[in-house]
């Protein structure tokens, strides 16, 4: 990967140059400020595949820079690793909310840096492949198609430009970073779109991805004003990490989200109205779950949410059967 590291501490930049020099598959250039990084980006013919950003810097900080990178189409999915000594939850929340992919805590070791870079290499490769496809396309229509996410029912795909919605891999990295103490007041919620398989087969990839994006916006907005991060986990399921939700009235929340979705008047590209409803699984509290335990809690909530969707459809089916028998 071609990496741009931005940190106002020259020692960190020297360490990064030294460590990345030990990894023949990567090249690194460095900048001591966001202004210098922007100048470098403007001068480069070759786009960067990954960014390593310090948070605390004079003038523009790393979080603000990360947010501005996400507004540049060619960098809206490029891995951004926050490399910082700020371990406070509010910084971690802000970094992921701004679009960070991962978080490395200083002081760091060579092996930890290697591991984190290896984790984001696949994302960088996907981004590069997509960019090449867009460049290779001859017509505007082909370019438009190439820019769409690769949509498969059971796989997550990135949702861009929705406040509070982050990539699925970033969500796992987020809960892995938080300390036990920080996770104490957090809950994982899962929401699944009912009859999502039918919607997937009836809709074009473009319409399906728009529908998922709209529902993610409804979920994210309805969870406000609590601190929340939402990610799309595939199969019509969204997992959300919500802070301070000690007493959630889940039925009421589901009603609110469904009303919000209804008010959006979702439709296909040809104007046909869509009937989209979500349901919720069993929430998981993150008390004393850290690292893999927190990731497992996300997985369990995902499963529970999809099971609820299946059960509701089964029950709906049995109501009709009972009615016919009677």
């Amino acid at each position, binding site marked *: 990967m071609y990496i741009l590291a931005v940190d106002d*501490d*020259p*020692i*960190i930049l*020297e*360490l990064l140059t*030294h460590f990345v020099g*030990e990894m023949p598959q990567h090249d690194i250039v460095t900048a001591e400020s966001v202004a210098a990084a922007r100048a470098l980006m403007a001068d480069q013919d070759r786009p960067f595949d990954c960014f390593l950003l310090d948070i*605390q810097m004079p003038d523009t900080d790393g979080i603000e820079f990360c947010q501005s990178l996400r507004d540049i189409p060619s960098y809206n999915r490029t891995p951004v690793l926050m490399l*910082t*000594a700020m371990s406070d939850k509010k910084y971690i929340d802000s970094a992921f909310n701004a679009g960070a992919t991962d978080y490395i805590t*200083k*002081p*760091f*070791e*060579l092996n930890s840096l290697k591991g984190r870079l290896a984790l984001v290499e696949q994302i960088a490769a996907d981004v590069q492949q997509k960019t090449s496809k867009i460049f290779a396309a001859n017509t505007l229509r082909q370019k438009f198609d190439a820019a769409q996410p690769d949509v498969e029912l059971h796989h997550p795909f990135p949702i861009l430009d929705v406040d509070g919605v982050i990539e699925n891999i970033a969500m796992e990295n987020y809960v892995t970073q938080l300390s036990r103490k920080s996770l104490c007041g957090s809950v994982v919620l899962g929401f699944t779109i009912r009859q999502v398989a039918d919607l997937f087969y009836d809709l074009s990839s473009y319409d399906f991805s728009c529908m998922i994006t709209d529902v993610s916006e409804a979920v994210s907005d309805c969870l406000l004003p609590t601190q929340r991060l939402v990610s799309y986990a595939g199969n019509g399921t969204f997992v959300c990490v919500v802070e301070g939700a000690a007493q959630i009235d889940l039925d009421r929340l589901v009603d609110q989200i469904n009303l919000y979705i209804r008010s959006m008047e979702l439709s296909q590209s040809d104007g046909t109205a869509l009937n989209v409803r979500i349901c919720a699984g069993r929430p998981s509290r993150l008390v004393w779950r850290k690292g893999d335990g927190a990731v497992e809690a996300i997985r369990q909530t995902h499963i529970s949410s999809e099971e609820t969707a299946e059960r509701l459809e089964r029950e709906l089916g049995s109501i009709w059967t009972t009615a016919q028998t009677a």
Partner: protein
Amino acid sequence: MNMSDMNATLQPIRDRFLGLLQGRLEDIRINLERALEQPEDSAEALSIIESILHKIAGTAGTLGYTEMGEKARVVEDRIIQDRANDHALQHKVYLDVIDFLEISYEVSERAA
């Protein structure tokens, strides 16, 4: 690359860190004196000390100066707590900064 190779290749960066450390410790000392002598400037002086400690905490551990890095982190956190508590912990913070300076001067002298 084994540990001793790694240590050897990090030596130039370590030397540069130690070179910068002299100036950083001097800045901490000057700002500590300023905070003690001019209490009206103490918040600003502590904020400057905090940002220097933040830099030291971020690299000292990686370069093998674990104790100095950890102490820098503890004192940085203490300054943040002090600010959150309307400077109620200021006396303790000053003592911590002095401890940090002693540890760091020792490391610096040993390395020289």
